[in-house]
């Protein structure tokens, strides 16, 4: 998702919604992540203020969970599995192919905010190894050609827009 100018009004209303909840910090952060696609670093102070925490504590929670990101992510988040089964089945080469195809390294987001490339320890689908996910879709038994065609699907998607 291309980072747009943050709608502070919207952020404030999300914070207000959670202000009086019990165990409220993580649901609030999830809500922000869902809305903006990431946790805007500048929102940490206002979240902390509403939750009566130190900003450093909020950042501690955000940075602890892989599910939260302080950086804006691409429209499509690719998660290449680097678990044991996938590794044995050649996931290292798969990752290299993806990196080469997209022109970005692991952990990075393409400049046009179309793709973000991540690795995960296991996707829980070892019988399909090597695997990867694009947003919420699984792709298994990958080969370099299959990767190229999957990626071109998403690129085509981009061109159609």
């Amino acid at each position, binding site marked *: 998702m291309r980072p747009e100018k943050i709608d502070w009004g919207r952020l404030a209303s999300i914070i207000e919604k959670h202000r009086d909840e019990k165990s409220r910090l993580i649901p609030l952060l999830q809500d922000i992540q869902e809305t903006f696609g990431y946790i805007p*670093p500048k929102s*940490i*102070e206002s979240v902390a203020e509403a939750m009566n*925490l*130190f*900003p*450093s*504590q909020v*950042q*501690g929670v955000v*940075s*602890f969970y892989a599910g939260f990101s302080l950086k804006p992510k691409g429209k499509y988040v690719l998660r290449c599995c680097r678990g044991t089964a996938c590794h044995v089945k050649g996931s290292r080469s798969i990752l290299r192919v993806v990196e080469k195809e997209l022109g970005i390294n692991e952990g990075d987001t393409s400049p046009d905010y179309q793709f973000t490339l991540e690795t995960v320890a296991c996707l829980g689908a070892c019988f399909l190894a090597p695997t990867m996910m694009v947003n919420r879709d699984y792709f298994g038994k990958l080969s370099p050609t299959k990767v190229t065609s999957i990626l071109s699907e998403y690129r085509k998607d981009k061109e159609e827009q």
Partner: protein
Amino acid sequence: MEDITLTINGKKISCQEGTSILNVAEKYGIKIPTLCHHHDLEPFGACRLCLVEEEKTGRLMASCVAPVAQDMTILTDSPRVTKHRRNIVRLMMAEHPESCLVCSKGNRCQLRQIAAQLGVGETDLYPIPNYKRLEQANPFIIRDLSKCILCGKCIRADHELVVVGAIDYNLRGFRSRPATVHDLPLKDSSCTFCGTCVSMCPTGALASKNTKYVGTPEREGLSVCGFCGVGCSLTMGVAGEQVIEVNPSHRQDTVNGATLCVRGHFAHDFLNAGERLIRPMIRKDGELISASWDEALEIVADRLLNIKRTSGPQSVALLGSSKCTNEENYLFQKIARVLLGTNNIDNGGYSSGQRLLRLIDEKTDGGCRIHPLEQLEKAETIFVLGANPDQSAPVVGYYLKRASRKGVTLIVADPRQTELADFASVWLSLLPQSDLELINGIAALLYQKKAYDPSFIDRFTEGFGEYGDGLSSLDLERVTGVTGLDLDILEETAGLLNGKKIAFVVGHGILQQRYGMQSIEALFNLSLMTGSLGHAGAGIYGLARENNQIGAWDMGTAPHALPGRQPLNDVLNSDTARRDWERAWQAKLLPDQGVNVVRMIEEAEKGNLKALYILGENPLRSLPQPERVRKALASVDFVVVQDIFPTETAEIADVILPGAAFSEKGGSFTNMEGRIQTFLPVAPPPGEAKPDWESLFLLAAKIGYTGGNDSLEKIRAEIAELVPMYVELDSQRDVAWVKETSKRKLFDPGGKGGMIPFSSVVSTGDEVYDDIYPFTAILGSVRYHLGSGTRTGYSDRIEELGLKGEVEISPEDGINSGLRDGDMVRVLSPHGSLERAIRLEKRLRKGLIFVPLAVNANDAMNLIGLTELCRPESPGWKTCRVKLEKL
């Protein structure tokens, strides 16, 4: 809590339920190694080194977080426990860089100590050093996180003790580390550089920067911090003859516990400054030249006696020091009163509202002298007025913030939105100098609701009827007008105070302001009405700026009081106090009150002051209108300055006597709580400098004094014998408390002192402001400097910080005046001007300007008028009207 019994290492132990195994073991002298545990912090269980074995079940548990249970059988060093402990240490060491040789933690590294105790040498593991960022872009702290073992002590000290919250754990697993928000360098984060984390860090991950000596100090000594009035207990590490590091002392009953502030921790490097005075100097033909002690003291004695003889004792004045010890101040005022026959003696505490605190002492007859800060955390309600302890006395700030976090209602009245205001239930953003109206307004609202303590009022006070009448006729509309506060917020505040015993914390915002005296009187009334006096965790806490401001007053370096705060002039009691002292000292004492420090300057201007002896004060920097003070002092025939630095004042002196700093002499200080702390020297004075009591004694001998006082012990014994407040002062113990000697009914049910009177309700006059000066400037402290910044100015680390002391202005006023961040401005008042950069500060309200003190040679004092001596001796130096010119 039930008593339970358990066995530790075969020893039967009974203890209370709810404590941890570690605490019980420690209590019985059984040592369990730990890296993350600290008695002032909540148990955390991070390092796992404290694991012990429950024999019956075979379970291993971390003893710091495992509560004791009935019939437990604990083994603290069974082979199994030891094996696991060794493995934990081996893993920590495998991740640790091998830089012990150059690590400043040296032999004090607890990881190293524990490894040694467990016999872990080589780890026999594949080392994977965890290289993390090294940060040293600030003058105080080096953070080498590759040495971090993630015990979380720094984080917990930051959150639980100093309540700043600059850092927390970030990321997880191997990458986990303490980090600031947005991973900023400490310098740009909310870190206050109190250094508490540095003292607590068990390894070399956090270390002091700019130390002249790397490694373990050769020896350590206990001392008491020489900066603000909190009187923190210190451990000073010494190498050779220099203090090379400062940490909070390891004692557990101290005012500061494991905390310190940036001044206490880092600014003591002023002790080693090359500018220190090392030999006496005398002025010959206009030039200051070195002289021997004998020669210098001879001149001082001769000239003082000569001037006394020719111009009379009234032409001699002495300025004692709120930074020197009790013993020195006692001796100093004795020289003034007995040998020179003058009561012209004062100390720097004048500017911190000593006269105002005296009012409380008079009204209670000496009943409210002890205010333990620890009771603030147990207070019912805290009301902070005109105080910003986060900057001026940070350790008090920690107490208040901790209290707020524990759920104590905190009310803050301050024109500025201070850090403390963020912790308050209510922040009253009143207009400057309107505290008196605020206090009366709240009292009136409480009176309306009958929210006062009738039984307290009946039993211990008098004059409530008249006071109540005054309150009911108070014009609340005027109160809201003068304070700029809505009635709603006043009602809310009164609601919070209703039925509560209140701890009032007052700072320079009251103690230095024009209506300070009246405000203190009103506050005293309010505390009587709510029954807040004589109650633990309640009463009026006055912040003391200087370390021994209270002691200097107690010792009688004051124009109106003899030692023990006894009145010089007390016709009602047929001058008993003075007569007693005359007998004790075998001398005739003048009954007339002497002149205070401001009057000294005025007398000098009139040509009436011929000799001035200044001990450890720098009036040319600390008093308003420095140029005027300079001129006045230049007209004094003979000026003696006894100090540790060639201060602005020393430069114009006729004789300079080099003194010893607090760490270089023995003595005692009395802090704002009323706690008297004695200490021994930890390092020798530089060069020929002498402890001040010693040079004062030598001088007294030259003047012709033969009455003993030739050792610290003898002076101390004389104080303990003659000053009822200080009976507990002796050399045997290092902490004592002043005595409350009141005979009022509240403090002594059988006493003959009678009731405590209410005083009548008074109001501020209507202010008429001159349009030429559209802003109100508030002068205030910054945490990196103390007072006028003479000593902190000689600290290399503070110097390196390069504080510009930007004048703050509200964004609205800034934009209206066409000013942007960093623009240079001239701030002009009717008395003078200064030039500084400006900063737009959104926490400041319209119409106000904030001018930090101490920076730029304390040029803020140019703005204030020295003679703005407001009604009874309130300094009135807190605010002034100013205008701005863009440069």
